């Protein structure tokens, strides 16, 4: 089990992770979701003992990251962002090096490597230099290298960037299969990644956790709605100016022109917002015509936007 308590990390006195606490239970597959620069990588680097926190406590299987870094590193397979590798080595040499450092029994190294090569379909590039491989293959070499010692915990930083859509699907299948036996933490700034793989999501914004729940609960508990409406009016410049001044929506955007004089908008509002009333008043005042209006419960994408996106 991974337990993080009041974690703070500052670089030159600028905090990038601010008082973060969470737990990940054995066998869980948790996604760290947040825009770039939210602090996901920093948190992962602390969990993997690459960085020390400025303050706070991290325990993995009851071991403290300060007291037993080596023991903790043995439990973890960590794939850093951008998958750094020794480009001069061939795939097989690299996997050999990792196996040796991971202390895999000499007699089992070959079979472990073969198994990983099969799992990540690396058969064609076994004796090629890593620097000559495509991004997708490099990622797969990275994945093979972090799983070779059959770690209890996998920590994957942006594991699918650089993979093509087919590889992403294969990767997700693999991940779901693995997560039956392993604890997995993966980070991403792509929501669909989480939707496709994770049971629980921790949304991070500017170094703090803004949500930590299962996807189902997030959707259920989130009462915001979005309104899609179209207006008939003569002058787009005027309408756009007036609409953008309306109060009560935390996100408002022009979607498209339905016809020459019909304009479609989308607004995200919280449940008790008076946006609807404001809109109706404005329409009356300006003598426009409301063509249609649809209200919908916000979906995951909008939840993410609200929680982690930049305010506008």
């Amino acid at each position, binding site marked *: 089990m991974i337990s993080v308590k009041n974690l703070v990390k500052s*670089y030159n006195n600028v905090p990038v992770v601010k008082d973060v606490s969470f737990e990940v239970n054995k066998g869980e597959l948790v996604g760290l979701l947040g825009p770039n620069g939210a602090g996901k990588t920093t948190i992962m*680097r602390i969990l*993997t*003992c*690459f*960085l*020390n926190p400025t303050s706070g406590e991290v325990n993995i299987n009851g071991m403290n990251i300060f007291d037993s870094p*080596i*023991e903790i*590193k*043995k439990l*973890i397979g*960590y794939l*850093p962002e*951008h998958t*750094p*590798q*020794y*480009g*001069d*080595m061939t795939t097989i*040499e690299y996997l050999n*090096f*990792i196996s*040796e*450092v*991971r*202390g895999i029994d000499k007699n089992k190294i070959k079979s472990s490597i073969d198994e990983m090569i099969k799992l990540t379909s690396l058969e064609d590039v076994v004796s090629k230099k890593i620097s000559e491989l495509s991004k997708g293959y490099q990622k797969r070499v990275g994945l093979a290298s972090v799983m070779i010692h059959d770690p209890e915990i996998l920590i994957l930083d942006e594991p699918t960037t650089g993979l093509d859509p087919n590889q992403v699907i294969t990767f997700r299948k693999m991940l779901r299969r693995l997560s039956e036996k392993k604890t997995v933490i993966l980070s991403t700034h792509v929501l669909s990644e989480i939707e496709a793989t994770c049971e629980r999501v921790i949304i991070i914004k500017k170094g703090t956790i803004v949500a930590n729940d299962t996807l189902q609960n997030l959707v259920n508990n989130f009462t915001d709605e979005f309104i899609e409406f179209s207006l008939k009016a003569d002058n787009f410049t005027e309408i756009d100016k007036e609409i953008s001044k309306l109060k009560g929506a935390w996100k408002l955007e022009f979607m498209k022109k339905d016809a020459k004089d019909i304009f479609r908008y989308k607004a995200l509002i919280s449940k008790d917002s008076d946006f609807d009333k404001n809109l109706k008043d404005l329409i009356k005042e300006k003598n426009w015509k409301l063509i249609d209006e649809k209200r919908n419960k916000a979906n995951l994408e909008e939840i993410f936007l609200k929680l982690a996106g930049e305010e506008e």
Partner: protein
Amino acid sequence: MDKRSFFNTLAVYKKEIQNYFYSPIGYVFIVLFLFIPNILFFFFGGIFKENNATMRMYFAMLPIIYIIFIPGLTMGTWSKEKNDGTLELLFTLPLNRYEILIGKFLSTLTIVFIALIATLPIPLITHFLLGSFDIGQLISQYIGALLMASCYIAISFFISSLTKELIVSFLLSTSILALFTFIGYLAYSVKFFTQLEWIKGILTEISLSTHFLNFSKGVIDSIDLVYYIGMSILFFYLNIRVLESKRWS
């Protein structure tokens, strides 16, 4: 060092040796190391003028050769790992910092050792041309050359840990090694220093090159052993400290 540590160090060592020979660095180093000093040796070293079967002139040039060649070999040790992001990989594997450091150090020392061994034909040829060689002196010279190399490697490793830039790492190492090497020569040649015994003493003691003089004469003095080993350990220690501090930065 327990068994696990030994195998960890060995794994890093193998990886580093592979890297030296996969890139041109290893070959270029060995070939130039042989080629350049030999030219200098035969044309300017005056082995035939001295008419004496000795490698002393050859070894006298060694500190200067190290100033350029060793930083060339070591500039990437940490800088390249940082630049490529592989440092994160290395430091999140279950390895101690010192296992990584020793593995890297021994691999670099091996390259220097191979280059030094490759110079052996010179004494052998001169042996046939000019008569018998003092084997004892030769062994002492090679031991000294390796110990001195350790020290140069330790210093340039440390400097490599300070920067991401390969060129900065190289230039800084060369400059600092040059300084530590030449203060020894200065102590002997500049009138100002030669007149002040105590300054001369200090400069001689801290210089990287002067401690090699005894070795090249065939004398193994404990002071010189202590100096080279001590300096190496000091810079290894500083190196580890720099690497550790990165975790806090």
